């Protein structure tokens, strides 16, 4: 199910984010926080909502089989602080998503970054990390 693991990107992302405390709406026990996978897919929905925004995207494997993935982010208030918006991602966008998958093997995960068609990368932890006063 996991399409393309990119070890270098995963290591770099881990190093960048290792010291960032995560303040999730829910517990972190469901996620394999030590694991990061990177997927390329087509956005089917960007649900800008509380308690978490959800990004639904289809990932096609080499045999043409499509898996519907869902990644979550923090809530809109936090995401806005990190430079995200309801208009950041559109249905049909081809994106590259790096996420911490859930432990039970379902195609779900906590988003770390999203690489947009424009080449811009959105950092899902920026809203927590950013201190607007410093």
């Amino acid at each position, binding site marked *: 199910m996991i399409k393309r693991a990119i070890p270098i990107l995963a290591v770099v992302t881990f190093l960048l984010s290792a010291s960032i*405390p995560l*303040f*999730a*709406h*829910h*517990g972190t*026990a*469901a*996620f394999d926080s030590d694991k990061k996978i990177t997927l390329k897919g087509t956005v089917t929905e960007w*649900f800008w*909502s*509380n*308690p*978490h925004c*959800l990004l*639904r995207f289809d990932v096609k494997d080499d045999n043409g089989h499509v898996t519907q993935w*869902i990644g*979550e982010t923090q*809530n*809109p*208030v*936090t995401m*806005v*602080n990190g430079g995200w918006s309801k208009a950041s991602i559109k249905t049909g966008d081809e994106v590259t998503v790096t996420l911490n998958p*859930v*432990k*039970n*093997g*379902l195609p*779900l995960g906590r988003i770390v970054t999203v690489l947009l068609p424009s080449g811009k990368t959105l950092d899902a932890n920026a*809203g*927590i*990390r*950013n*201190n*607007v*006063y*410093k």
Partner: protein
Amino acid sequence: MRIRFIPSLVILASLVFSSLAVAQNNQAKPGPGKEAKAASGPAPRHDISGTWEPANGPGDGIQANGVKAMPNDGKPEHQPPYSPYGLQVYKSHHALEGADAVLPGFYDDPRDKCEPLGFPRMNFYNLRETQILQNPYKIVMLYQYATTWRVIWTDGRALPKLVDGGVMVGNEVKEPRYYGYSVGKWTDDTTLVVDTIGMMGEDRVWLDTAGRPISDQLHVTETFHRVDQDHLDWSVTIDDPKMYTKPWVAMNKFPMRLENPHEDVMEQYCSPIEMEKYNKLFGDPSSAPTGKAPGK
């Protein structure tokens, strides 16, 4: 009592305008934005009005693992002084955060049904941008989360007394409230002490996201100390003889910083429709046994 005879619209208008006027005088910011500011001036007398945000950044107020001064991280020094009954109630709660967290899908936090957080949990969950409006009679706090407000009376009235079924106000028994009954008193030029009683019982609200309990016997004491023009320290003490054997400090001089008065605070709602969709698509399946969605 005479405040009752003043039309509520006039009160609201005066709160808004007096608060805005004070805030603008204090900061004199010409336009929107979160620009770096010059050194702070002295604290104004008897004034905590303004738009405030956690000084150490937005992450400081989320308090996902429980109250800031006593996070539920398993450390013995962070264990509140539970009574036997309090510990029993705590263990009956299934929180998504803290040392005894359960997986999503197995929790019973009233927050996740979009129930009112109640007081004092409003101070301990997603404490973000907080607008404080003030007039000679009362202080109104507008919390960002759930667009919730509470009133702190400063008109000299006495704190109601706890009685069976609620609180006694004058000769009248009034019902318990999610946000209780608050009375504030200035103890010096820059320190406001607020007492609150008459909150909901343990079956309706939690103290924090880690599932600590509170009861209808709870008495909360808050201290707001305006350190200087731009900084406000906020402390909260929990005194609940039903749940805890002695008072304890849940928030200790939590630092808030004054924002630009033009800051337009964003909505943050708990929507049952959004929550249902979230749980169906993500929350429930993410907590399912390996490779299976719940119920499949």
